[in-house]
């Protein structure tokens, strides 16, 4: 419900702000106006509605800080930091994104500021890089299915089982399966490339998806809508946190964390080098990874907290590191997408 309302609101306020395209802007005045109040300018891919609870809790702790949150796509977030886009006179102080590769590139290219604190030192190694980027969630890439569609069929628990199911009963799934279109979605591209690194099963899966005329989607929410409605029986590589929220809201969907391995996307925050309010930004990061922040992320924001770090061995966090730069390489991206197209699209 919230999400739907947020989407509507988003459509209403969507307007270009400055040089970049902002989907939603929310301003929160300081709780207490003490002297010259500082303003924390955040740009992020996370929906403003989801961030609201976190921002309010942060303001309760730091009462003299006003916050402006701009929601944008991951590409816009990247460009805002890369090109030092201003909000009025101020640069952005914090960039939050689910596009790990773009965030890593910002750090690698020296666009992020170092931040060290007791709070960030608690983070596991895969959640930080160079003390400049901090993962505060880990969200699995899951399979979702319509419960009615699978009323009489065993739900596949791994990619291999899914592959077998689709091969055995192609008729049931023709045109009724979906996945991210990596050409359109940055997150879809990240999942696809990481999948291709994990195993060859991915390519065989994509070939079958092509054979079965899979629907290619821009975003998790769209896939969730279609599965909930029953038009699509199963969607592969949907963001688990969104699926969880949707299921908790009563949608007739089931969630599978593939047993062979489940990729974990890490939502990250970094302080742009040009920030003029790095203190407040650092406080915000510390708050996100604090116990209180992590609890809020789990219960209010419907994201999965980065801590505590329980791992049964099949959960594979996508590593924050220079490896992520590889698929950002224009030639590499082109080569991957063309390989992907030959696996999926040409068979449709």
């Amino acid at each position, binding site marked *: 419900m919230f999400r739907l309302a947020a989407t509507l609101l988003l459509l209403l306020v969507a307007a270009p702000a400055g040089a970049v395209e902002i989907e939603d802007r929310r301003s929160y005045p300081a709780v207490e106006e003490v002297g010259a109040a500082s303003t924390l300018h955040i740009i992020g891919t996370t929906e403003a509605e989801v961030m609201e609870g976190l921002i309010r809790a942060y303001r309760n702790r730091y009462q003299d800080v006003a916050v402006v949150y701009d929601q944008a796509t991951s590409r816009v977030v990247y460009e805002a930091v890369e090109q030092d886009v201003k909000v009025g006179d101020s640069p952005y102080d914090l960039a939050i994104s689910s596009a790990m590769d773009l965030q890593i590139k910002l*750090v690698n290219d020296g666009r992020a500021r170092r931040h060290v604190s007791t709070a960030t030192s608690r983070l596991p190694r895969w959640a930080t890089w160079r003390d400049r980027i901090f993962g505060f969630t880990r969200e699995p890439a899951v399979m979702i299915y319509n419960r009615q569609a699978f009323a009489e069929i065993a739900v596949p628990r791994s990619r291999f089982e899914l592959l077998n199911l689709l091969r055995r009963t192609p008729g049931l799934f023709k045109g009724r399966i979906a996945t991210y279109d990596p050409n359109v979605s940055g997150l879809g591209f990240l999942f696809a490339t990481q999948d291709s690194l994990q195993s060859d099963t991915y390519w065989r899966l994509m070939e079958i998806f092509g054979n079965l005329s899979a629907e290619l989607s821009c975003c998790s929410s769209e896939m969730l809508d279609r599965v909930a409605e029953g038009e699509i029986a199963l969607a592969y590589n949907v963001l688990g946190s969104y699926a969880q929220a949707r299921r908790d809201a009563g949608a007739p969907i089931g969630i599978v964390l593939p047993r062979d391995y489940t990729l974990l996307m890490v939502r990250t925050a970094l302080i742009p080098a040009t920030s003029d309010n790095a203190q407040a930004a650092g406080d915000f990061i510390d708050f996100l990874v604090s116990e209180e922040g992590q609890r809020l992320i789990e219960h209010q924001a419907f994201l999965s907290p980065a801590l505590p770090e329980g791992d049964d061995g099949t959960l594979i966090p996508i590593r924050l590191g*220079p490896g992520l*730069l590889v*698929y950002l390489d224009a030639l590499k991206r082109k080569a991957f997408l063309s390989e992907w197209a030959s696996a999926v699209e040409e068979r449709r």
Partner: protein
Amino acid sequence: MSTTWSLRRRLLGQLLLVFSGLAVLLYLSVQAVAGRAADSTQDTILGASAIAIAEQVRVAEGALTVDLPYAALEMLGLAGEDRVFYRIATSGGQLITGYDDLPPGALPEQEDTPRFFTTRYRGDTVRVATARRSILTSDQRESVLITVAQTREAFGTLTTNIALSAAGVGLGFLALAGFLAWVAISRALKPVHEIERAIAERASDDFSPLETAAPREIEPLVDAINDFIERLRNTLDTSQQFIAEAAHRIRTPLAALKAQAEVALRGNGQASEESLRRMLRAADETSQLTTQMLTQAMIAYRAERAERQPLSLAALARTAARDLEVAAEMRGIDFRLDLDDSAEILGDEIALLEAIRNGLDNAIKYGPADDYVQITVTGGKTPEIVIADHGPGIPRQDRDLVFERFRRGGSASETPGAETRGGKTMGSGLGLSIVRQVMLAHRGRVRLEDNEPQGLRLRLTFSAPRIRS
């Protein structure tokens, strides 16, 4: 009191100084070695990455392209969290992909041998590897230059950490060395403390030598102390003996004097002239004895302490002979001198004169009247003075005894103070003992020999004077 200093602290200080120098040296050398090792480790990874990329350079539809291998950059992230840059371009500088502004470096000559250099890029020091790949495009052979760069924070930290550990180890050794040095010094000083304790605990009349087991280095100290104790004992012995004997010797003539006086008193003044003469002789004898004893004490003191100076032995002999001329004449004795004027010795003039005078006195006393006493001085390496008389001499077996205090040679060895040889010769028995004492103090020798055909020869032999600067 002069300022004291601690041997222990000085040794410890020097040791620690040396060791801290070594610790710094260790830190610097390990840092250099670790730095080189880190360089070579980073070079290995960078080179592997560059070659991995080079292998993926292809020609697709007539154009150069590269399928950047995931591992090529991922492996650079394994060693640390350093920034990574790459550039792939034709040897002509045409960018294929990557960071166009990255310094490309020189084209390596061999395809399988990357080249390395260090430069600055985007505000950081980066280590750079370059690799080359020759590939045939549609119409010609093209060289592709692959450049991979990485910042050096992790390797710098690694180097510093290794060097710091080394310095830590060095400091550990320093502490250990300090402790061991402390223990070693304490142990080394233990014999000194033992000597100190042995001397402190010693009774003031205990003159036995120290018997602590001293190491070879300390032995001279123990020897010196023992030597000193021995001399102290001798001095005290001499003094005590002197006091005891002097008291005894002086009491006897005084008692005689007292007896004479009593006889004189009883004789009602009749035999008074004879009595008075005897009393006078007894008083004379006592006086002479006292003088001689005091002289000996003075001489003994001088012989031990007085400054040595170069002296002519012949001059000394002449002076002594002149001093005793009158006494000799009284017995009709004259001196015959045979003096070598080149004979020179180091010594104390007063003590030596006294010794020679005693020798001459002895010769005058015991030699026959109306005779001569021969005085001979010879020079050379061991200057000598020989005093020869023609008296009765001293039997060989008694010669050692006469050098002891209060003893007189053979014929005169009766009650001290009594007259001998016709009542003319008086002797205290101190004469030769003074001679011996002076000679010993001058590191010389004294000997009694038979004179031919008869008599006694007193031979005083000196060691050659050593010229002191």
